[in-house]
């Protein structure tokens, strides 16, 4: 196959648009890591679980299409806070390994429940209605670049979610409190902030983002399957590490970058080799820039 420059640009555009779901998942990982300095490995599982909840409730109650995108995030938030209660809340706060292992348990538990309930087979996920049919072309000198309507919707919805998150984190006392806890847990408690309360809120916020990401990812391919869980977990971790653990803008930029490059690798080397290069990218970052784009040196007394 003869690949021209325009094809690469086209792949990059598609990838960046789809990468906004990676950015959302990376944001969730990084939010939780920022608040507790712990990785929640069950995060992507609760995100996909949220999408399943949205699908299930909508089908059972025969609600219209858009209801999935409202119920999915709520389901994601609920599952996420359940993960917090089961895997983080009652474990010793200084034992990072225990929480890590517990959340890996949570990951497989949610994964298995989904597999069990759906007999392991993928379900049709409604596509994005008129957005799926829309397609825009832009003429660029004598070449044509196409924009898929559903991917534009995915990008738009992701960025809307990120803007709302930013507003919460930077403009309300609730967001300030969660940031205060992540910077100085002891002082924050002595400002009257309950750590468990703000941690729960952080998990809910992350879970809602994850539910949105799960719904968008499933809608843009038209199916949802338990097989989405592990790749999304891994991609989320890659994005979080490349962006810098705990860095919000890092997660957004890294999500788009990983999405874009992944799509280019797919074009150049095919689906079997794609992830090799994604992990190679992770490896390169771990060797040459272990703190990622914006990861701060940990500095606390």
């Amino acid at each position: 196959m003869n690949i021209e420059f325009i094809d690469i640009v086209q792949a990059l555009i598609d990838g960046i648009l789809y990468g906004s779901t990676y950015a959302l998942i990376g944001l969730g990982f990084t939010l939780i890591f920022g608040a507790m300095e712990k990785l929640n490995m069950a995060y992507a599982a609760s995100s996909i679980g949220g999408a399943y909840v949205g699908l299930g409730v909508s089908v059972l109650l025969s609600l219209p299409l858009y209801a999935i995108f409202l119920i999915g995030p709520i389901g994601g938030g609920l599952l996420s806070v359940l993960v917090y209660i089961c895997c983080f809340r009652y474990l010793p706060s200084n034992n990072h390994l225990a929480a890590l292992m517990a959340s890996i348990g949570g990951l497989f538990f949610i994964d298995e429940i989904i597999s069990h309930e759906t007999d392991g087979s993928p379900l049709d996920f409604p596509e994005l209605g008129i957005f799926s049919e829309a397609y825009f072309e832009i003429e660029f000198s004598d070449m044509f670049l196409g924009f898929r309507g559903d991917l534009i919707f995915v990008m738009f919805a992701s960025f809307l979610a990120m803007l709302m998150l930013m507003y919460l984190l930077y403009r309300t006392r609730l967001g300030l409190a969660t940031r205060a806890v992540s910077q100085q847990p002891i002082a924050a408690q002595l400002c009257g902030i309950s750590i468990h309360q703000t941690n729960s809120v952080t998990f809910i916020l992350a879970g809602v983002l994850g539910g949105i990401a799960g719904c968008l990812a499933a809608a843009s391919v038209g199916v949802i399957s338990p097989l989405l869980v592990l790749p999304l977990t891994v991609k989320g971790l890659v994005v979080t590490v490349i962006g810098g653990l705990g860095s919000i803008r890092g997660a957004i930029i890294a999500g788009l970058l990983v999405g874009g490059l992944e799509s280019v690798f797919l074009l150049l080397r095919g689906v079997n080799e794609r992830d090799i290069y994604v992990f190679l990218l992770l490896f390169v970052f771990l060797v040459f820039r272990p703190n990622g784009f914006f990861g701060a040196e940990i500095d606390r007394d």
Partner: protein
Amino acid sequence: MSILKVDNLCKNFGGVQAVNGLNFEINEGEIFGLIGPNGSGKSTTINVICGLYQPSEGSIFLNGKKINGFKPNQCVDMGISRTFQNIRLFGDLTVWQNLWVAWKDDRKNQGSWFSNWFGKSESREKLISELLSFSGLETRANDLASNLSFGEQRRLELARAVASKPKLIFLDEPAAGMNKEEVKELRDRIFRLRDLGITIFLVEHVMDLVMNVSNRITVLNFGKAISEGDPESVQNDKAVQEAYFGQ
């Protein structure tokens, strides 16, 4: 009337008795000093009262209510607040946001859960601007706390401790690293807080300050109170001189 009463307070870390049978009572509106050589258990005492550590034995009463085993944030709800020996500001938040985080709605009067976390309120704006002028940080309201100078950070931490509207403030070595002029300003601020009706619990190494502002002083050594009384009698106490200077 006593605002804080500590009864036979003990705190062990493994085999080490950091605080050993401490008794004292603080009256409302007074400035109470706690001094002692390094490692005598002063900071541990504060940490136990603020709920950071659980006491091994003994009881703590705030306004007659037992607060043993309360979490730090519950102690803040009860009207306790504190500053730290090593400054613990929220470095990535602005000066204004540092005060906002610590601000607490008067829940009984007006606050709902929603307004506490999301709302805007006039009383908040008013309190924060008062605190900014109290600490002389009006011009730095929108700077990140981590960009403040050392002296400014200490002032901000004191203001933040006041923002939760406490009845009792613990000051853990507030004058550490300050020059004479700054200590004088700090003393004025402490008096202003007392005049607002806030009881002050002062842990300090700078003797000038403690002896000047305190109504009563307790001296700790090896986790035990070895002397108590007004500044003059404590200064002349043989046991205190021995603890500080040796025999």
